[in-house]
Every structure is written in structure tokens, then in C-alpha cells.
């Protein structure tokens, strides 16, 4: 039995793959170091991330997988659900042990799992692209917070960079405690000092652009006016817009008194 620990990074996970192949010691468990539970049995291997080793694994994969499948594998990493490391490992092992492409081999559990994880991540990415709501600050920064189910911030940056090329913006993941900031030329990662467990960071009234409240109100008015009460269908409404996303949406907040 071989228990691997790594630093939680994608490169770290690929290094684990490299080490396991090197030793022919297939993992019983793979976990980030800080989560690992000590166990009395088996061998514990603490893998130190090595960019060169990770690079060699990735290059090997690039030769055997389409771009689409490479992305799906990376999305499975961002999926972060229990057991994702093992799924990724099994997938990579299957790739290297087959002479033909394994894409579409959905009867193999790891292939189906990667496809399904990638689909969930992709859907969350799309939802974030839809449900992010920027507030304009007094110094013309467009500011939004998110707390997505999966770690999709790295995947949505490109979309917002292309779309809002001429405005400064920041999107902050309050769960994972990091954000992306665009300064009109490039995007960089940022960290804010925040009290733990703070999910929504409201903008102080004086920090808001003078027109911000008006536009939020206009949007609320618009949202109410396009509804057709004769067709009310709460089930469908919730299916498209589950309640856990409402916290982002200004149109679902209580109306200010006029």
C-alpha cells in the first residue's frame, strides 16, 4: 500500500504520477499533505513538486491526448471533489498503457468520471460567466465576488479579459481566498486580507460610484418588468437559477424603498 502526499498543485499531482511510475508503486491514496491522516499501515511517500518531472508527464500526455481531453483532465483537477487525484491517476495510467487513444472509452470508470467532472466544471464556469455582477467603485474599478462550487476562477479569466478590455475589474473567490485583477493591460492574481469565513464583501456606500445604486435599481426594475405573471413557473426558474447563486444577483435582492 502506497500513500502519496503532495502540495495540492496540479504540477505536484503530475509529479506524484511521475514518482509512482518511477517506483512502479501504484497509489492506494493521494492527498494534499495538510489533509493527510497518518495511518499505521503501508508506505508514506511525501512528493516534492518538481517542475521538470511534472513537465515530462504533461508532455507525454500531450502526445497521446487531444486538446479537449487535456482540458478535461485539468478541469478534473479544478473539480476538487473527493477522490479526484485517484481518478486523474487512473486516467493517466490508462493513457500510457494503451497503444490507441482512450478518448471515448466510457466503459472505463475513470474515463467516464473525467468526462463527467469536466462537464460539471464547465457548467459552473459558464454559470460564473453569467452570474458575476460587477459593482462600479468611485475610482472606476468594477468589482465582484464569487464562491463557486468548483475552482473555476482560472477558467473564467480569459472570458472577462476579452470582454472588458477597456475597464479595470477584479473578481474575488471568497471561498478559496484569491482573486483576479485586470489593470487594462494584464490579469494578475491577488490576495486580500480578510477575516476567515467572510463570504460576501459588501462595498461601503462611500466607495461606490455615484450612479451605482441607480443602475442596480434600473436592473431590478427591468427584471421585474420582463416577467410574465400569467406564465409563472417557479420550478423552472429554480432549475435554471438555483438558490445558492442568488447571493450574487442584484435582481434577486430585496427592492430598495422608493
Amino acid at each position, binding site marked *: 500500500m502506497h500513500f502519496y502526499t503532495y502540495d495540492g498543485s496540479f504540477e505536484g499531482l503530475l509529479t506524484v504520477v511521475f514518482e509512482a511510475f518511477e517506483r512502479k508503486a501504484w497509489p492506494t491514496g493521494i492527498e494534499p499533505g495538510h489533509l493527510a491522516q497518518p495511518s499505521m499501515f503501508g508506505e508514506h511517500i511525501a512528493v516534492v513538486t518538481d517542475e521538470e518531472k511534472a513537465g515530462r508527464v504533461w508532455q507525454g500526455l500531450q502526445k497521446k491526448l487531444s486538446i479537449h481531453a487535456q482540458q478535461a483532465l485539468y478541469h478534473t483537477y479544478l473539480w476538487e471533489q473527493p477522490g479526484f487525484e485517484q481518478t486523474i491517476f487512473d486516467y493517466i495510467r490508462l493513457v500510457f498503457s494503451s497503444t490507441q487513444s*482512450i*478518448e*471515448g*472509452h*466510457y*466503459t*472505463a470508470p475513470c474515463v*467516464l468520471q473525467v468526462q463527467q467532472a469536466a462537464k460539471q466544471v464547465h457548467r459552473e464556469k*459558464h454559470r460564473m*460567466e*453569467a*452570474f*458575476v*455582477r*460587477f*459593482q*462600479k467603485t468611485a475610482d472606476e474599478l*468594477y468589482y*465582484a465576488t464569487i464562491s463557486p462550487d468548483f475552482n473555476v476562477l482560472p477558467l473564467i479569466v480569459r472570458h472577462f479579459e*476579452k*470582454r*472588458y*478590455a*477597456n*475597464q479595470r475589474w477584479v473578481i474575488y473567490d471568497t471561498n478559496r481566498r484569491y482573486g483576479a485583477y485586470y489593470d487594462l493591460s494584464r490579469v494578475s492574481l491577488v490576495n486580500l486580507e480578510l477575516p476567515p469565513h467572510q463570504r460576501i464583501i459588501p462595498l461601503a456606500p462611500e466607495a461606490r460610484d455615484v*450612479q451605482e445604486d*441607480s*443602475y442596480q*435599481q*434600473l*436592473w431590478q*426594475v*427591468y*427584471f*421585474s*418588468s*420582463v*416577467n*410574465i*405573471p*400569467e*406564465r*409563472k*413557473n*417557479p*420550478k*423552472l*426558474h429554480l*432549475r*435554471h*437559477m438555483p438558490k445558492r447563486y442568488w447571493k450574487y*444577483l442584484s*435582481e434577486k435582492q430585496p427592492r430598495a424603498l*422608493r
Partner: protein
Amino acid sequence: MESRLIEKLSILADAAKYDVSCSSSGGKRRNENKGLGNAEGMGICHSYTEDGRCVSLLKILLTNHCIYDCAYCVTRKSNDVKRAAFTVQEVVDLTINFYRRNYIEGLFLSSGIFKNADYTMERLVRVAKKLRQEHKFNGYIHLKTIPGASEELIKEAGLYADRLSVNIELPSEMSLQQLAPEKSYKEVLEPMGSIRQQLAQASEEKKLFKSAPSFAPAGQSTQLIVGASAENDHQILQLSSQLYKDYSLKRVYYSGYVPISSDSRLPIMADPPIIRENRIYQADWLMRFYGFEAKEIVDEQHPHLDLDIDPKLGWALRHRHVFPVEVNTADYELLLRVPGIGIKSAQKIVSARRFAQLNFEHLRQMGVVLKRAKYFITCQTKSLQRQDVESELIRRKILFGEGSVRSALLKQQLDLFKQVG
């Protein structure tokens, strides 16, 4: 700005909401000028109304003043409603500021007809032009083409808009004459034909010169109102099938008539025909993505879609001799015809069976709805059904049996349907 602008927005959004098109996909406008917005590829629904419809665009009328008196329309001249009109600048500011906050994908601008068609169309074009040229706006713009507007104006509209649409509204010329005597099919089909021609021409030019100006890259669409006039589903689907073929439309939208008017020319109804509208959309999907012909779905002998079951299941129950199909060998086109197998799962099946023989558990994991599919497939010659089941029984089992609960909405509508019929 406040209260006056708020009032205008609520009036002119309310008046535009019966136009169901909300698509924001298919644009090819990339942000290459460090401008605002990017409309390549996929559309995005930024919100959903409480009736479950997507909110993708700022959908408003420029004005709800109108010289026409179409019975089905909330904006008709004789209707006693509050009237309002935006200025060009107000629409531009709303669009830009909503877009910058990621509320919308762009603008869908329509209008009541004031003075005449050209006068109205000219103002719609002016909004789009201003957004593109002064604000370097690359978001999505959908402009309504006003029937009767000149060809030059339509041509100019296509330069700035991603999509143009002209609404047929009623599924036959006769109904149009009854309910909208000032309009005619000719007036609607003419701009549609002219847009089709411009689209074809622009795509030819694009082949020769990459820099040729594009014309409404997301194509054109139209809308039919369902239930305001007497046409049956067969007539409606024949018409849309013809529109897809003859006018290369991207979409035909169907709008279940919401009783907004007590005009004596209209049928009396309590609720909009939501289920019927849904079945027509399903049929439309079958025609566009599943390789069905309109006449396979409904014909003169069976002119109505079954409200209880979806049209694909309906077709399968009428064509039992085609089934069961063997999942491990059947053509993709045939798999698509199996109830419970959608496009995604059909694709997965075709790709997975290159590696291994599939069994029912594999199918379930790939997302096939076995509850429906099991009556129509075999897996390695095995069936989940012990003996042949009659179509009528399958229908009942899928509708009521084995834990399937009918939605409250469906029940309501069916009860209503029984009362009327």
C-alpha cells in the same frame, strides 16, 4: 434621471416582453479594438425570469406609440396603456452600463411604429450605429426589422446588428388579415427575403475578401404566436419547416398567446397554452437537430401534437416496427430516434462501443433515460422487457407508472383542455 427613466424602462420593457427571442449566440464580433464587449460563440443567459425564461439581452421597445391596431398586441393603438419613448442616448447609456456590470449580453431593440416604417427603422439603426461607432461596443445587437422599411435601411441595420428579425406573428395570411388588417404577409416576407439575399451575398464576399463587411452574422429569426388564431400544429410546423428551408432562418420562435386583450376578434382563454407551446418547441428541435421531417411529426390525419407525451415518444409509439434497435450496432441517426436517448448520449454510445460491448449499466451511466428507452432498445440482444408491450401500455407506463409523477402544471392544463374540448 431617476423616476422618469425608471418609469420609461418599466413601460418599454413590459411592452417588449412578449417577443420571446433571447438568443445571444452566433455573433462573430471579437474584441479587437480594445473596445467594450466580445460576442463570439456561445450565448449567455445572465438571469431567468420567474416564468423561467432566459434574460440575455436588454429587450426593450424604443417606443410603444404605434399607428397600427393589431388585435393580439399589447401596444396596439386602441389599447388604453401608458405610452413612453426613449431617446437614442438613453438606450445607449442603459446598454453600456448594464453590459459593463455583466447584466446582459447586449441589446434587443424593437419598436412600435410611429409616423411610418422608415422613420422608425431609421431610429433603431441610429442606436446600433452609435453603440458600434462611438462606444466601440462589440456586444450583441438584435434589431427588429420594421415591416415596410426600405431596403437601404435594412442593409444598414445589418452592418451594425448581429441578428435581424421580422415577425410573421400569425401562422396564416387569413389570420393576419383578421387580426392585423394593416399588415400583410407580403410586407413581412419581403424584408425576410431581402435579408436572406444580403446574408448570402455577404457570405460570398467574405469568401473572396476576408475584410468584406459582415452582415448580421448571427442570421435572422422570426416569431409565430400560437393560440391566438385557429391554425393547428400541422399548419404551424409546415410553415416553420418552410421558413427554415426557403429563408434560411436561424430560429423560429413560438409564443403561446398570453390573453392580454379582450378584443372580440380573439379567442377567450384563461391561461396561455404553455404545454402546447412546449410541444411545438420540441417538434422544432426534432426538425433542426434530430433529422425529423415536419410530416413525420404531424400530418393531415394527425394534425395535433399529443399534449401528454413529447413528439419523439409519439413518433416511436406510432412506429413500433422500427424497434427495438440494438444499441451496439445501430446507426447514430437511428439511436437519435430512441426515446430517452438524446444527442449527447447518442454520441457517447457511438464512441464507447468502439472499445467495448455496452450493457444497460453502461447506458445508465452515460445518461440514457432507461425508463423510456428500455421499450425501444436491446443491449447485446438482451432486453429489459420480458415480453412485447403494447404501445398504449408503454404510453401509460411512461406517463403514470413506475414512480413518474405528472407535473402539476401539466395536470392543470389537461384538466382545462378537457373542460374546453
